[in-house]
């Protein structure tokens, strides 16, 4: 054995039962630093991280900036609008605009109505869509594929094309022409119309013409019923998407789960309610969030179903459109800027509750869809 070999052996300083202390020559800090940080791989990693953050922050900025600019202008005092130095950050904070909208416009009524409508339709849609989707996902019956194609079709045909027909439908809601038949209008099914003397002599309903009933049907506009009817039948806005998502989710649920339940004597429906629904809660929360927020922000259907000015919803009310009279002309020098600020504040107050709910639930939104096992085949 030569000496150098002995030297390179670690010297044991202290040895106990559990610990051992060893002297050894450590590579110098400079060398270690070089090896770790001054390499091409490390450089690549750093550059990539920076690029990634720039991209993410940039897009986050695009998403958030409109909110930021609106919030800041809504918090500005009137004097700030005359100050050319004030751009994005208010100099004098004031909540006058919020106060005025709260007190002078019927914010709380509209808020309550919108909440009621969104909650009820979202609950119904989530449940009905999962019911229908389960049928499509787990049962083989004749026409399964065709019916599912029809689900996609209901999603594809834009409701804007059908707008007039939808309005007419719910202005005089009449299933299979029963109402018009009973009031002497003859037979009218699917656009086919036939009438003769005998049929028109059947006039049980007479010429009722109240607020709710007309000879042609039930008047459902300006109520929540159109939403509820469309939700119960899985035809409401984007319900095709919900059915698609839930079907994908249910298809990922192993069949053995249900089979074992069937063997234990549980029926199809009992299995669905006690076993399938509880495990699909994450996905259902996602669908619930979708339908809740899309009902809340929906401007199209509320215009179709609520005619005239008696619409009690946030989006169809005067909030964000009309200006509260007490603060309307506060900034005479820069009136258009001021009035825009009032309008955008109204808009912010419309979406604020939704954003608050989103902040609490966004975790579930991503979770639900991540666990959906969505593979699209």
């Amino acid at each position: 054995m030569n000496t150098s070999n002995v030297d390179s052996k670690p010297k044991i300083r202290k040895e106990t039962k559990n610990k051992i202390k060893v002297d050894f020559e450590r590579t110098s800090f400079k060398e270690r630093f070089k090896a770790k940080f001054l390499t091409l791989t490390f450089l690549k990693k750093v550059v990539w991280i920076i690029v990634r953050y720039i991209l993410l922050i940039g897009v986050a900025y695009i998403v958030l900036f409109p909110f930021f600019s609106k919030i800041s202008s809504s918090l500005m005092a009137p004097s700030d609008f005359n100050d050319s130095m004030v751009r994005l950050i208010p100099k004098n904070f004031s909540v006058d605009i919020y106060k005025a909208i709260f007190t002078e416009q019927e914010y709380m009524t509209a808020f309550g109505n919108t909440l009621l409508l969104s909650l009820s339709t979202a609950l119904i849609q989530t449940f009905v869509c999962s019911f229908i989707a389960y049928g499509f996902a787990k049962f083989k019956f004749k026409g399964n594929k065709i019916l599912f194609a029809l689900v996609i079709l209901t999603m594809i045909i834009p409701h804007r094309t059908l707008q007039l027909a939808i309005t007419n439908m719910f202005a005089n809601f009449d299933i299979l022409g029963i109402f018009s038949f009973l009031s002497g209008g003859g037979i009218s099914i699917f656009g086919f119309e036939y009438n003769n003397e005998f049929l028109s002599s059947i006039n049980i309903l007479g010429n009722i013409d109240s607020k709710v009933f007309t000879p042609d049907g039930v008047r459902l506009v300006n109520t929540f019923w159109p939403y509820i009817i469309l939700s119960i039948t899985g035809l409401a806005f984007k319900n095709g998407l919900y059915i698609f998502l839930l079907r994908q989710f249910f298809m990922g649920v192993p069949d053995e789960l249900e089979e074992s339940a069937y063997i234990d004597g549980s029926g199809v429906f009992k299995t669905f309610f006690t076993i399938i629904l509880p495990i699909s809660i994450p996905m259902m929360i996602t669908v619930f969030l979708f339908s809740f927020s899309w009902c809340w922000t929906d401007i199209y259907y509320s215009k179709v179903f609520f005619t005239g000015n008696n619409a009690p919803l946030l989006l169809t009310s005067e909030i964000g459109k009309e200006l509260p009279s007490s603060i309307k002309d506060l900034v005479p020098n820069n009136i258009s800027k001021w009035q825009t600020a009032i309008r955008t504040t109204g808009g912010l107050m419309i979406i604020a509750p939704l954003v608050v709910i989103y902040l609490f639930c966004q975790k579930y939104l991503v979770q639900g869809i991540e666990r959906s096992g969505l593979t699209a085949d």
Partner: protein
Amino acid sequence: MTDMLEVKVKKKRKKTVSLDKKKARAGWIFVLPFIIGLVFVYFPIVFESLEQSLFYKVPGDATARVFNKFASYYEAFFNADTSGFAQALFTSVGEIILDIPMILLFSLFMAVLLNQKIGGRAVFRAIFFVPVILSTGIMESIDASAVLDTMSNAGGIDDGSGSSAAGEIVDAVDLQKFFNGISLTDGMLKYVTDAINDIFNIVNRSGVQMLIFLAGLQSISPAIYESVQIDGASAWETFWKITFPMISPMILVNAVYTVIDAFTVDSTVMTYISTLKLTEVEKTTAISTAMSWIYFLLVIAILGILVAVLSAYTFYQKKK
């Protein structure tokens, strides 16, 4: 004796309902709400809409209608008052065709970024999915109420929507300088600059697509990536040879969704249709309904071609 026999026969008949049949029945019950809605609500609506487009009202008579032998579909293009329709139609269809690749690329790119392990991922996700809940265009409608704003050009509060001239992020001239050496055609250049200036719109419309892509990325087994890494594939190769094929069914779904979603956005042609006024008043309803059906059919034809092309390149892991 005979009684006994009858009972037995009945019992036997009951038993002959096979499990498959039972399950089929249960399936029908599950989809029953949809069938009821389809038959009693949806079909009548669609039929009435078609009827509206095919029947002209008779002048002077409020209820009478005359079958127009598809003339409304012809007149949608060739009526004296509808000269702008073809233009509006092709503008909108062109917008949809151009938007599809942009939205798909952007949402795929962002989904891949968000799928990586980086600090603050939860925060970024929360921010990026804000457009999902506001995707019915409410932000635009709030902005629209501020359309009169002198804000943007007075140098006041920029609403960030990039609609004002001052808000344009990238100018075509800048990009031309940037791509000086590369021979890009003007059309390509305009497409890129338009896309960048339209980024606000694109971000806001790709929320759901991002979610769907993210779900697809999550469903790819990490074992595949591991084995590829062992084989020495670079990140670039991994993306194109593993991630991209595995995510290709999602591209199909998202392409379809993007086209469908485009119908809910205010497009040039829909605005044209809703503001249509004909001198022959009794024809207005029929022709405007016909127009929206034409628009729908054209987009569906494009969607059909798109699906046919994409599904040829779509990779399915599970063979049916």
